[in-house]
């Protein structure tokens, strides 16, 4: 595969394996690429500077199993998705001793993110969003919402981003969708979220955190950002896991503006 990922990934002619650096690509991108190529095998990941090691086994488009020195299964997979520095090595043809995950790549990523968010929420209830290095430092002035929305728009699969007030006022939008009228989305979204929040209140299950609506011709994903609601429009659900992963920090950053 030389050239496809530039200097990030290189091909070893002896074992046909791929190797590279996590500073220039992400595990989610790598998995998606390998799944699309119908590859089977394992990715060995070494996190720097801790030297933690982990393995992700996959085949036929599924994440079969994962483990690190501390965890196994989905927990270890979720943990490794957050490793942003380190190296990886793809080992083709290797199969796991047992299947501890067994989900499609997209589904596994989605489940891992949900698991991670649940763990974070259970440890830090009502805490302010943690903005990590790379998106914004707390000492810096918050970026303009327009800049954050443009970054969201650059994520592959996102057609449009809209921020709507609780009253349905379309505060800001970026991009466009041939499938969804953004102004109408504002009003509809506010109605839906009100209903969902009333339900959450009735059921006493805390505030709403995410909503995915899958229609035949579009998928809409919503999250509260400050006092407003942000929604992204994608053509289908095929990249939802990746999108959810990549939008997480940007949504947190967007929340500082509203």
């Amino acid at each position: 595969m030389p050239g496809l990922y530039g200097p990030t990934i290189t091909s070893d002619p002896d074992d046909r394996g791929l190797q590279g650096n996590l500073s220039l690509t992400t595990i989610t991108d790598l998995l998606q690429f390998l799944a699309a190529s119908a590859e089977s095998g394992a990715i060995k990941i070494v996190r720097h500077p801790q030297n933690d090691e982990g393995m992700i086994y996959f085949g036929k488009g599924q994440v079969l199993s994962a483990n690190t020195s501390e965890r196994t299964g989905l927990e270890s997979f979720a943990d490794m998705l957050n490793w942003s520095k380190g190296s990886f090595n793809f080992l083709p043809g290797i199969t796991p001793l047992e299947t501890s995950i067994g989900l499609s790549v997209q589904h596994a990523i989605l489940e891992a993110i949900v698991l991670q968010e649940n763990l974070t929420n259970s440890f830090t209830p009502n805490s302010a969003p943690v903005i990590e290095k790379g998106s914004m430092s707390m000492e810096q002035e918050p970026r303009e919402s327009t800049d954050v929305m443009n970054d969201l728009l650059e994520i592959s699969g996102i057609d449009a981003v809209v921020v709507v007030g609780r009253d349905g006022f379309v505060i800001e939008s970026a991009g466009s969708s041939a499938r969804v009228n953004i102004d109408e989305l504002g009003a509809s979204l506010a109605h839906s979220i009100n209903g969902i929040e009333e339900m959450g209140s009735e059921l006493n299950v805390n505030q709403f955190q995410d909503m995915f609506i899958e229609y035949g011709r579009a998928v809409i994903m919503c999250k509260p950002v400050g006092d407003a609601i942000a929604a992204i429009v994608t053509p289908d659900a095929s990249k939802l896991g990746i999108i959810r992963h990549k939008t997480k920090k940007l949504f947190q950053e967007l929340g500082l503006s509203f």
Partner: protein
Amino acid sequence: MTVMRNDVVKALAKVTVQSNEQGLIPEYEVLVNLLPVSLLNTLTERLLAAAPDRKPEIEAGLVRAAYECGYHTGCGIITSEIFSEVVMPMVTEDEKDILRGAYAAFTAWGWAKSGIVQLKEGKKMIVRAFDYYEADSKGEGLRAYMLQGLNQAFFDLTYADPYPDGMDTFVCKQTKGLETGDAYGEFIVTCK
């Protein structure tokens, strides 16, 4: 349930207004009129052109005129029969929803296509507007005098002492403007 902007706009847009023989429309316990926006903008331009060395005073006067008009008319709006019929049934978050309703009314009546972006109750409000009186006016710098005054008036009406004792509690500053090439007008209301 909160105030749904579109529902308010649709309901208010159906209301028929009839002017009297002097061209004045008795609405919201005051007399309003229907005049072209260019009239206000021309007046502003002429005032500024007449005394360029007194620009800050004239600007403050224009904001003040809008503020006083907005404060009294605004009280008429939020206590009017039509506001009670259309907006109040949707109010579940008290002052916050009344303000949302007021901005929906602004939009319905064509005063400014505007809405609340951020609201810290009784402390701060950020408003964005995508159309307003001075958006196409001639001049230099930020100059949405009307909406500056109206924003301040509505925040005073909502969070300061009850009408008519709450004047001049808050102040509104314009930070972005359509008239200066920004994508929207932005206004920040804070304590004076």
